């Protein structure tokens, strides 16, 4: 495997409800390669298969056919356990509706992936002491500007703050890849800017590769590469030279 490639996807097809009258192929053969540390936007209309592709890339779902190498390993026919551990070791997730656990504080939410590592058999984070986990989580929350809100429960936080917690959570195990599904989807433009800046910063500082699914063309325009999906196929894949992390907010 090429040392630089993080994602190598070839000929990926995904069919739902195989064998049923409602059988439908959503992805019709996707070839995609993403390198370490890349900052990529994935755009496309609703129903183009973006979320499905993201789920397959994130090992939440398996393709019906095709090959997938993640970080040099052939994960195409991994079992559920193997996919879960690979997900835990390599990937961080940020969802549109931030998806924090309401019963846990911000700090505990950030610690969760590390805590899971103590008993999921994958070994990632297993060596961390609780104190060390706590310290790392606190550091990350500080980094996203929530140093004062660590012991708050999600319902006590604004939408933007919750999304910052989710970002901190996605980074706790220093993943090589963070998958973000409409991370700014339900936030106002000012808050969106802040979130985007954070993602940019972590990409720059930690070399974390980001793949951001978005509807927002302005946000996509600030990424280094734009992959456009139409009807389950990659319609366009271009580097975006115009991207700049210091781009001023153009939204009104």
């Amino acid at each position, binding site marked *: 495997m090429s040392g630089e490639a993080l994602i190598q996807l070839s000929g990926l097809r995904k069919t739902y409800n195989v064998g049923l009258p409602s059988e439908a192929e959503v992805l019709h053969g996707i070839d995609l390669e993403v390198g370490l540390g890349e900052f990529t936007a994935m755009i496309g209309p609703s129903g183009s298969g973006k*979320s499905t592709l993201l*789920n397959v890339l*994130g090992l*939440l*779902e398996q393709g019906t056919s095709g090959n997938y190498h993640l970080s040099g390993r052939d994960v195409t026919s991994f079992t*559920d*356990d193997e996919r*879960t*551990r690979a*997900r*835990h*070791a390599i990937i*961080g*997730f940020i*969802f549109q509706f931030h*998806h*924090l*656990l*309401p*019963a*846990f504080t911000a700090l*505990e939410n950030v*610690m*969760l*992936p590390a*805590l*899971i*590592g*103590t*008993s*999921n*058999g*994958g070994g*990632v984070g297993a060596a961390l002491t*609780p104190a060390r*986990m*706590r310290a790392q989580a606190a550091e990350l929350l500080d980094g996203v500007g929530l140093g004062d809100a660590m012991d708050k429960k999600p319902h006590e936080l604004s939408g933007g703050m919750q999304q910052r917690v989710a970002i901190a*959570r996605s980074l706790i195990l220093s993943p090589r890849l963070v998958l973000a599904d409409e991370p700014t989807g339900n936030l106002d433009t000012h808050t969106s800017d802040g979130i985007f800046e954070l993602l940019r910063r972590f990409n720059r500082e930690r070399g974390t590769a980001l793949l951001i699914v978005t509807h927002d063309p302005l946000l996509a325009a600030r990424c280094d590469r734009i992959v456009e999906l139409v009807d389950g196929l990659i319609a366009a894949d271009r580097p975006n030279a115009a991207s700049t992390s210091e781009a001023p907010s153009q939204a009104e």
Partner: protein
Amino acid sequence: MTLGFELTVALRFLREGRMQTALIVGGAAIGVSVIFFITAVLTGVQQDLIRRVMGSQAHVVVKPQEETVTPLVANSDVERLPSIQARPQRLNSIDGWAPMAHLIEITPGVRAVAPVATGAALAIKGNTTRSIVIIGTELDRYLRVVQLEDKLKIGVFDMRPGDAVIGIDLAHDLGAVLGDRFRVQNAEGVSETLRIRGLIDLGSRGLNQRNVYADLRVAQTLLGIPGRVTNLDVALNEMIQADAVASRLRAQTGQLVESWIQTNSFLFTAINNQNVMTYLIRTFITIVVALGIASVLVVTVVQKRKEIGILRAVGATRRQMLSVFLLQGGIVGAAGALLGSVMGLGLVVVFSRILRNAEGDPLFSLHFDFRLIGVVLVAAVVLGVLSAVLPARNAARLDPAQAIRG
């Protein structure tokens, strides 16, 4: 958060769903307390009953064989139905009882043996006459067979020749008090004068009106069987093994051997039936509690779909999710058992004051078996975990992609 992932999440989920948790813990607690209560009451009532009925009885009694009539029929070729007159029973007695008593004493399962000469007689004081049963024995040995000390109301257990300990109702009937003398006379007119050294309450009016305990030799004289006994009373280590030991003794001694289970078959059957009923009730309560825990957890899994999906997405394996819900079942079971034990203890205390028997004593004594709490606790945890198997499997099988989307 230092408890490990599964326990942390399990506890947090339970705390988050306070209402549901309270409901299942409450349900489990009520179930446990009822099981506790009926077990304590029944054990108490049964022990009370056994103590009452068996209080003045030996576990096993060895008696001589009854005399039977063997018709002398010459080998006739004519069929006939002989009319056989049963013969009246003389007072049968065992000769050479001492070696037999020793033989019985060394039989496995036997705790103590006492020689007894017992039969009917009359008690006479002034112009009052009462029919009595005289029980002559060697006191030291007899007290090891039958627990009589605690039934003594006044006086002492002192039975030298010429002394007697009699039932309180007999004393009342005779108009006698402690220290009084009365006469005991047999059918042939032979009589002995005995001094009342103690009054005893055997818990039954019939026995209290009739029983007179005296020295073995006095009874032997009165009953006309000098040197012999009418039966050997035997106490066992485990009274429930009476039948087994009885048949062993029957084979060894060749005498008529009766166990308390035979002579009190009504009691034994009643206790057995009661136990079967309680067992059934306990089983049904257990099933209801298990179904309650399972149904609430099934709902919890549905409500927590999204959170389960998130945990799976960020790296929790199916096994971990399974454990989270199995643990919840176990925790709920343990909490229910602890709370239920306290409630059960409360019920036992309250009802031991309210429920009383005919004599106004508590219907069951308050010896709460604390080992039961340990047993119930372990059983409740196992039950909780088993009840959680179905919901936990639902949680583990949840497709994270779908759970998050929906």
